[in-house]
């Protein structure tokens, strides 16, 4: 009888403690949580389980992503949407990217410039084969000064043009991208799709890109979503 009482008491205490920690976890401002060792110790193992069950299929066991299918690496310091804060990661887990949920990240796609109608959202003119090649040369020249300067200059003109490529609208003047809309930095060595080769860049310009990530708002409890966000945050490289 005493044993039953002890086990029951322990279970009850564990349940109360669990509820208390979960309550604190949810009530805290997300970005303050990494400074709460007790809550992090509580959340991370659970977040790892949540990640394994819901995110690993695409992002991989080590959060390394997959450039062949445009799945971003979550373990590096290069963040496509936002700057990698807990609140931003949590938002992606909650609502996703182009997930069909009204609050998902869905502000822009990469147009398919080799198609008759490159962009579904509004009218953009296609680029011809020479222009795609020139824009690619321009992008390669940002990291490799041995590229043909004349082609790079032509490519830069198309890149900056408000009538033709309109690349500048999303990727910005200096091609460093815009993490407010998920436009990647084109000047660094991190490539979301492919390996940064001429062929891979041309393919992105010709065929367009619009990756998706599901939103778990309706499927997972809020605590688990926050735990997953904290787990991902804990595994990324901080700069």
């Amino acid at each position, binding site marked *: 009888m005493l044993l039953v009482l002890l086990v029951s008491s322990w279970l009850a205490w564990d349940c109360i403690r669990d509820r208390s920690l979960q309550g604190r976890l949810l009530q805290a401002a997300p970005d303050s949580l990494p400074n709460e060792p007790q809550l992090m110790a509580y959340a991370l193992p659970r977040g790892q389980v949540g990640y394994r069950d819901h995110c690993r299929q695409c992002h991989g066991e080590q959060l390394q992503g997959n450039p062949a299918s445009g799945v971003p690496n979550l373990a590096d310091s290069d963040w496509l949407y936002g700057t990698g804060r807990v609140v931003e990661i949590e938002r992606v887990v909650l609502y996703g990217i182009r997930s069909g949920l009204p609050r998902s990240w869905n502000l822009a796609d990469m147009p398919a410039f080799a198609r008759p109608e490159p962009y579904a959202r509004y009218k953009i003119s296609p680029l011809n084969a020479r222009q795609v090649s020139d824009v690619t040369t321009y992008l390669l020249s940002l990291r490799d000064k041995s590229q043909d300067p004349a082609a790079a200059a032509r490519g830069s003109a198309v890149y900056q043009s408000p009538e033709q490529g309109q690349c500048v609208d999303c990727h910005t003047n200096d091609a460093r991208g815009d993490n407010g809309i998920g436009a990647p930095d084109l000047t660094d060595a991190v490539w979301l799709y492919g390996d940064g080769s001429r062929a891979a860049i041309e393919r992105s310009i*010709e065929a367009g*890109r619009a990756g998706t990530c599901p939103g778990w708002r309706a499927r997972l409890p809020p605590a688990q979503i926050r735990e997953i966000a904290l787990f991902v945050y804990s595994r990324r490289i901080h700069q």
Partner: protein
Amino acid sequence: MIHGPLFGDPAAINPRRAMFLYALGALLGLGLAGYGLFTAEGTVVRKVPPESVALVNNRPILRSDFSTQLENETGAPFSQATRAQQLKVLGDMVREELLVQRGLELDFAETDQDTRNALVSAMTQLAVAQVTLAGVPDEATLRRYFAEHREKYATPGSLTVEDWFLPGTLHADSGVSDAIVSALRDQPATDVAVRYGLKRATGADQDWYWVAELHLGRALFQHVKSLRAGEVAGPLVQADGVHFAVVRENEAPVLLSFEKSQPQVAGDYARSAQNRLTQDTLTFLRNRSRILIADEYSDYKP
């Protein structure tokens, strides 16, 4: 009144212990029932759940949404927001929720076109959400889809063509067309144009196959697309005259491997699944609905 020790010999009959355990069981059952009753979804609660910052008629406003809206409005991290800013945003969100709830009560979907558009869009997007949540299909499924739509996954191909034409008509047996074709093969096109009075139809800029087809017209494009650089297509009679096309460069579309096409294949597969799901939903809705069409539109078919 039952007297005696509460816990004595476990093997002996003890009415006092039996009553105590009955009472304990009853209390436990009542506790569990009460907990279930007052915490079930849809139950009116008086306490805001930890993941929410407010409840408006039992509809939660998530802390996460609150943080995001606050950051969007102030342009600064949540931690830097003042109390006044936090309360203002909270007030805005509560106001929005109240108005949305009232809008639902007034059934704006019946009369307001913007609301109807938003609902139709949300329903369409629901298919996107369901397909996205289902996760990425396995590689075998994607490969099957890729094989079924093989021709879609190719480079666009590019052509550089000079399209020259002789206005009017030309007798087939005059020998002039052969002379023009021969000259265009070996000599600068501008010289040949001067000699025979040819006019230029389109530029020589490099362009995709589909653009070349638009510029040249289907018939001339069909002639041109199998030619190599330096070869000449023609003569081909069209409305404005007899055309001769000089191919300067021809890079035919190349089928891409599955590995190189994977993101497109996954996207296309998802879109086709979304379309199927939307169609299935519409079929289901039609089947369970009673739709009456006026006699004059009796030829209506869904």
